[in-house]
């Protein structure tokens, strides 16, 4: 088996699977919690708090979990440090930093 065979096989397999995977996921994940909710957060009833929660969740999903999976959990004593580290490393805006901090400390 040559490199051309492997490359052709891999690209063909990828091209065939990606649309299938996306369609399956779109069907199965509607209404399911997203990946970032592995760190369970208490739900709040206040609409404003819920809005912050979802905004912070969006920031987490779009910036943090783009590179790595969420840790199983960590002490609230370091949440500010984690967020500041993410601000520098992921180049978050000030607004996103604040929303992320609210998400980690509802």
């Amino acid at each position: 088996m040559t490199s051309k065979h492997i490359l052709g096989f891999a690209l063909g397999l990828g091209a065939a699977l990606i649309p299938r995977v996306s369609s399956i996921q779109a069907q199965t994940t509607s209404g399911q919690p997203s990946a970032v909710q592995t760190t369970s957060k208490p739900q709040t009833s206040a609409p404003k708090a819920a809005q912050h929660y979802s905004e912070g969740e969006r920031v987490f999903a779009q910036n943090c979990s783009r590179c790595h999976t969420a840790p199983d959990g960590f002490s609230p004593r370091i949440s500010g440090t984690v967020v500041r580290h993410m601000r520098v490393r992921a180049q978050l805006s000030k607004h996103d930093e604040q929303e992320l901090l609210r998400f980690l400390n509802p």
Partner: protein
Amino acid sequence: MLAMLCAVRHATAQDTPLLSGGVGFLTNTNSGNTTYSPTIQPLLAAPIGNHFFVESRAVLSEFFTPNSDGQPGYDHSHFISLAYLQSDYIATPHLTVVGGSFLTPFNTFNERLSPIWINNFQDGPLIAGVGAMGTGTGVGGELRGSAISRNKYSIDYVAYFSTRSGNEQFNSERSTGGRASMYLPDSRLEVGVSYGRLLQGTRENFYGTHVWWEPKDTAFRFRSEFARGHHAQGYWIEADYRTQAFGGLNSWIGRIEPVFRMQQTFRRDTIVSDSLPLVNTQRADFGLNYNLPHNTRILTSYSRQFSSTGDHNIWETGIVYRFLFPTWKGK
């Protein structure tokens, strides 16, 4: 007044310095020779006041390799290095000034994916050295931040200058460069370009581009990079996937993570000024990882590398635990 004090105490408590990182045991079988490597990569991060932040990552590895010439037993060597040690000053909502020893911001692998608790494979891509300016670390300063952040798109940037340093722990080359990325949240698409110029020795330019895509509501990720120097160029594409169809990501099936990476390098001439192979090379990496509970991952992969100097197999296995905790208990 009491409320203010409580708030300050609460805020201070959130800013306790943290110790994070990864510890793992890795094996690599390349062309039949197996290397065993226990390794630890601790990361320390400490905020100082409201604007300053200090962070550092180190690498401590031990390598056990079989003795050559058929002799029984193993030889061993160790590697200890400071990956970076930088202080950050958050000057404005759009600007952070970084000083010290920092990871070279060229493409994405060096800054984002190189920690063992993040990378899907044990080893980096073949082109990881292009634009990394030798050590992958610069000594000098960086300007970085979020230029624009809107609901529909965001643009971030980083520009750096590094001086030449011969210090054992802070080795760097005189260089400059930067990166700009645009992210589209609706389509979960990131596109970026990088530029670097080596200001000593071969004095060459490096160009790079990266494309990341993570379709919404899926655990599918696509990452790719292209890098070009004066004497060589190459690319890698990587896709990984976890299914949520059978009980979510935390089910035993959802924890399985197949990964595929394809990479090619092309040498444009025989002048060697980068870490790319001396001949054109193709490599396919097939990985199968398992994400255990408690921040532990099992990494396995098989790679087949093709070049005119000979084809060979690379087998890798490893287990990596990611830790993250405060440096002291606090209140």
